[in-house]
Each structure stands twice: as structure tokens, then as C-alpha cells.
């Protein structure tokens, strides 16, 4: 006959094998199905206690803080203007030329943000408003002071969503993985209209962004190297690096594009806005 101590030890080992061990080893955090249920395991939310508690290597840095696009060397660092060899597709070139002509005439071309459409990635990151970032072991939450746009970068090992289920969005779906001292973020599943990289440069549902994120300058400067592809809009890789400064005297506020306020703005209602 087994002793009570051996029984308890065996029970603990069995519980570990059936419960905790698979959760620790599985790449994608899931909630086990209820006993007797035929449902597949449900993925755990990024803020689920079991997901947060899962053992993980210590991340090399913590982005938690408030950040502001670095404009100390230039006021135009917020813009995404391509430099060097860059070729738009014929479809995108139509927009680019129309925007150029509108500017020459003192007009505004397809200013969807002024009509309350979300700015979307990547320019939501560089608009001249603070961004609050909160890092957890399983995700980084970024809330822009500009229209309180929310972006989530999942770090919990989940893969990108099923393309037949995911809902396309202006900030896309971001999955982050740590590579040494760098956080590599892969983002896709964007909307196909009303989304611009910059004035006259459309983003499509084929936009794919890879960001290599680093903290430099003793953790006070955030650096992101962007590699962007969008075969509907331009050829090849578009690479650009942006920097943000950690700021200590700023919070984000509630900012919404309200219909009544927006209709009061001559800039958004002008007949010189080219739709």
C-alpha cells in the first residue's frame, strides 16, 4: 500500500502534467476546454491572469511611459515622405499626382483624417501628439493622444489571426517577438481605403509593416526602424527610421473627432477640400 505522502506527490505530478506543463510549453496561450466539452481550447486574453503569470524570459526593456516624436532636429520628422529610389504603382501614382496638384492650387487632397477617419499605422505613431505606452509581459498597449487611437502589440506567443476571421483595421494586427535587445513587430490586416501613409500615398489591405524597436540613450529614446511593403501602392521595401523622446510632463487626454465640432471647422468643410 502506498503511503499518503506518495499519493499526494503523485497527484501533484499528475496535476502538473495535465495542467501547468502544457500551458508553459505551448507557444500560444490557451484556456483548456471544460471537462467533457467538445469545444477547442480558447485562446487566453493578453490580460488573463494565467497568461500574465506564464513564465517568460525577462524582456530587455520596458516601453512603459509617455513618448513624443523627436522634432529637435527637424519639425517634419512626423512625415513619411519616401527618399531615394521609390516607385509607386500606377494606381497609387494617380493619388500622388492629384495631391501634388492640389497642394500647388492651395487645396487639400483626400484629407480623410480631417473627416474623422482614423490616421492608422504608421502615421498615428508620429502625429505630433503624445503616446502613452503600457508594457505587460503579454502585450504592449499604445494609446495615442491623437483621437485616443489604440494599438496593441501582442507578446504572448500567439500567431496572426485567421485571415478569414480577423477584422481589418487602421492600426492592423501587431505580433511582437524579442530578438536579443530588439523587439520585432509584424503588423498586417489593414483596411483598404481612407488610409494614407502620407498625403497622396495610399495604404491598402496589402500593407505589411515590420518594425524593429529599440530603446537607446539610457532608455530615454525610442527608435523604430520601419520596413513597409504594399504591392498595391509601391514597389519593394520602404525603409525609414523614426525616433521618439520619453517625456515626463505630459499625459494624454480624451480626444475625439466629434461631428458637431468638426463641422464647425472651416478647414474640414472648405470647398477647397478635394474629396
Amino acid at each position: 500500500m502506498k503511503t499518503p505522502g506518495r499519493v499526494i506527490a503523485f497527484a501533484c505530478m499528475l496535476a502538473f502534467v495535465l495542467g501547468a506543463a502544457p500551458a508553459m510549453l505551448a507557444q500560444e496561450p490557451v484556456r483548456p476546454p471544460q471537462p467533457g466539452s467538445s469545444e477547442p481550447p480558447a485562446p487566453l486574453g493578453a490580460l488573463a491572469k494565467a497568461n500574465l503569470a506564464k513564465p517568460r524570459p525577462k524582456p530587455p526593456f520596458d516601453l512603459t511611459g509617455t513618448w513624443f516624436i523627436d522634432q529637435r532636429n527637424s519639425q517634419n520628422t512626423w512625415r513619411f515622405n519616401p527618399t531615394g529610389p521609390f516607385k509607386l504603382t500606377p494606381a497609387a501614382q494617380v493619388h500622388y499626382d492629384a495631391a501634388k496638384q492640389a497642394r500647388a492650387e492651395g487645396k487639400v487632397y483626400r484629407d480623410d483624417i480631417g473627416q474623422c477617419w482614423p490616421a492608422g499605422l504608421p502615421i498615428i505613431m508620429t502625429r505630433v501628439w503624445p503616446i502613452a505606452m503600457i508594457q505587460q509581459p503579454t502585450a504592449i498597449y499604445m494609446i495615442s493622444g491623437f483621437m485616443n487611437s489604440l494599438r496593441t502589440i501582442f507578446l504572448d506567443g500567439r500567431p496572426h489571426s485567421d485571415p478569414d476571421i480577423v477584422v481589418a483595421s487602421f492600426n492592423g494586427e501587431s505580433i511582437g517577438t524579442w530578438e536579443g535587445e530588439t523587439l520585432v513587430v509584424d503588423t498586417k490586416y489593414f483596411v483598404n481605403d481612407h488610409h494614407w501613409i502620407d498625403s497622396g500615398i495610399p495604404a491598402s489591405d496589402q500593407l505589411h509593416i515590420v518594425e524593429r524597436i529599440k530603446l537607446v540613450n539610457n532608455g530615454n529614446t525610442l527608435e523604430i526602424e520601419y520596413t513597409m511593403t504594399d504591392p498595391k501602392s509601391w514597389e519593394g521595401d520602404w525603409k525609414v527610421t523614426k525616433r521618439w523622446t520619453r517625456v515626463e510632463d505630459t499625459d494624454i487626454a480624451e480626444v475625439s473627432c466629434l461631428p458637431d465640432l468638426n463641422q464647425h471647422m472651416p478647414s474640414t468643410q472648405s470647398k477647397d477640400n478635394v474629396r
Partner: protein
Amino acid sequence: MKTSVVIGYAGLILTLATVPARAHHSAAGIDQTKQVTVVGTVKEFKWANPHSWIDLDVTDDKGETKVWSIEMTAPAYLARAGWKSTTIKPGDKVTVKVRPFRNGDPGGLFVDITLPDGRVLGQAPAAPRTPSQ
């Protein structure tokens, strides 16, 4: 009240490059090379995100009154320059400098204001005061 409208060429000011970004709309319709001074009576002052604004009743030399819509930045940046939501109220007589609309519509982007008590208030740059080094 009778008003004066003075148009001057202020030249490009680099800080204005931030305007279309911290605003929520493009500023391509603004003539950044000009500065207009208008004297008028506050009709409405809105303290709101993402923009504050002033509607100003401005009467020209012919006695015709038009409402100038003057777009401002967010209250956080105005507060840094000394503004409060109570700084101006309907009926106040003020002088305002603006970057005008290219198309001639009455209004533009706010530059600064001279209050009834003579104080001059602008708006602070978007960049924070104390970035970490």
C-alpha cells in the same frame, strides 16, 4: 465696432510646420506666408479637443460684419501659453493675429491675441518642455 484688417507677410516660420500634425486636419488650405490682424468682438470661444476655436464678429470699413472662424490648437498647448477656458468670453473686444485661409474665407489659424486688458497670449509649441535626455 469698426475694425481694421492688416495683412503682412510674415515669412515662413519653421514652427508652423507642426500645425498640420497637431491639428487633426491638413493645413494646406492655410497661407503660411501671411499674417492678418483682425479686431473684433468674441462671438464664441470653444475650449475643446482636438481644437479650440474663436468665432469673432469682425466689421469691415463698409460696416459689413462677418464671422471670422479662427482655429486654435488643443487646450493643453494653450494652457501652457497661459490660456484658461475663461480667458475670453462673448462680448470681449480683442485683437487677433491669424494665418489666413488661401481661398479668402474669413478666418485662419490662430497666432496670438491681445486681450481687453492688454495682455498678449499665443499658443505653446507642441513639443514637451522637458524631454528626457
